[in-house]
């Protein structure tokens, strides 16, 4: 079966890959272009750990046909930090012990970024809603919710807008 060429911007960098018919974006990110930050949890859309942004919108990369990102922008957790400086959400996750095994963390961070980009002053309900497609079996969500609210509070003074 012929491979199809796909070009997209990954965290600001141009990437090109040859994809198979029916191949999902998560597979192309992890095996094709070597970004291991989005994780494979279920392949069913139910765990959210593969969440990425496509043109700023949260999408499940395991359910995204890879060839459909041709010409689009993809953001993963690898694109959040600014060099050695963590993104405010990453900082807050560390301060609040919002990761234990850390498997759900990339998806949680991206879901949170999608929320704060659209709504920098979310309520607790907004945060719960924003991560409602992401499953964590370790922290029990409270620490994660607090971290996201804290990042939003910290940023309403200054830095969130970055990244």
């Amino acid at each position, binding site marked *: *079966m012929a491979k199809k060429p796909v070009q997209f911007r990954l965290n600001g960098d141009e990437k090109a890959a040859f994809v198979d*018919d029916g191949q*999902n974006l998560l597979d192309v990110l992890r095996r094709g272009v070597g970004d291991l930050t989005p994780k494979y949890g279920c392949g069913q859309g139910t765990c959210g750990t593969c969440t990425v942004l496509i043109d700023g919108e949260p*999408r499940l990369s*395991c359910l*995204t*046909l890879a060839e459909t990102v041709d010409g689009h922008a993809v953001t993963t957790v690898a694109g959040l930090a600014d060099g050695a400086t963590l993104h405010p959400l990453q900082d807050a996750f560390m301060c609040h012990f919002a990761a234990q095994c850390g498997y759900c963390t990339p998806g949680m961070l991206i879901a949170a970024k999608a929320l704060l980009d659209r709504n920098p002053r979310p309520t607790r309900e907004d945060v719960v*809603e924003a991560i*409602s*497609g992401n499953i964590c079996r370790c922290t029990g969500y409270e620490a994660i919710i607090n971290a996201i609210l804290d990042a939003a509070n910290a940023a309403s003074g200054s830095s969130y807008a970055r990244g």
Partner: protein
Amino acid sequence: MPVRVETYAGLDEAAGALAANSAARFFAGGTLLMRAINEANPSFDTLIRATDPALKEIRLEGDAIVVGAACTMNEIMAHRELAFLAPVARGIGGPAVRSAATIGGNLFAWSPFGEMTTALLALGATIRFAGHGGQVAIDEFLSNRDRYRGQIVRSVSVPRISDPSAFRFLKVTRVKPKGAALISIAVRIGRPGSGETRIAFNNMNPVPTRALAAEQALQGGSLDEASVSRAASLATDGMNPPTDALASDWYRREVAPVHLKRVLLGRT
């Protein structure tokens, strides 16, 4: 089994390609089709895509709103004229599902999914097909859904709702805030003395179904306690609910009338 993906710019060409291969599926948001591929056991060998902008249009047409089949739940939530459908769209999956899941794909979603379709059934929507497929009422579409699999839905024509209280929707879940529906209920309230009230259930039959006996009990349009109780007592007539991981058929039969009564009395 490997899957072929064919992409067409025009809807008519895509409709021709789909009609020519019974093992092909039209690909929209992919939230259900990619699941099947990831399970490595799809019942199809070809995916047909179309990039035609007609699939994305939302426009007014007389007393109806025409919604392109590839409009996502997020796009529906963002559109002012479709505000009455926003609570339905908002209940479908988490944010990352809603940015991919389309209204056209929802028409073919299997139990326990299909909230948007349930709402469209209560509203009396019309399904329009690409190519020479014409259009059918959603009631006819759902009663013969497998027959329409070989055609591409181009758009859904939804009657406009000017009085927001005339349309009511309830998704009953065990897992908050987002879980698959145990049942969902959509009601289009008729005008007192004239218009018929339409009641649709999801997960009470293999496809979204109208509760015709309950509707009959509300003829005349009055929603007083006595008529509503009579309608609720008939809610499960003709229903054959599934037993699945969420609930038994017995449980669904028990709770459906209770929730319907609350929806009709505005006590949700």
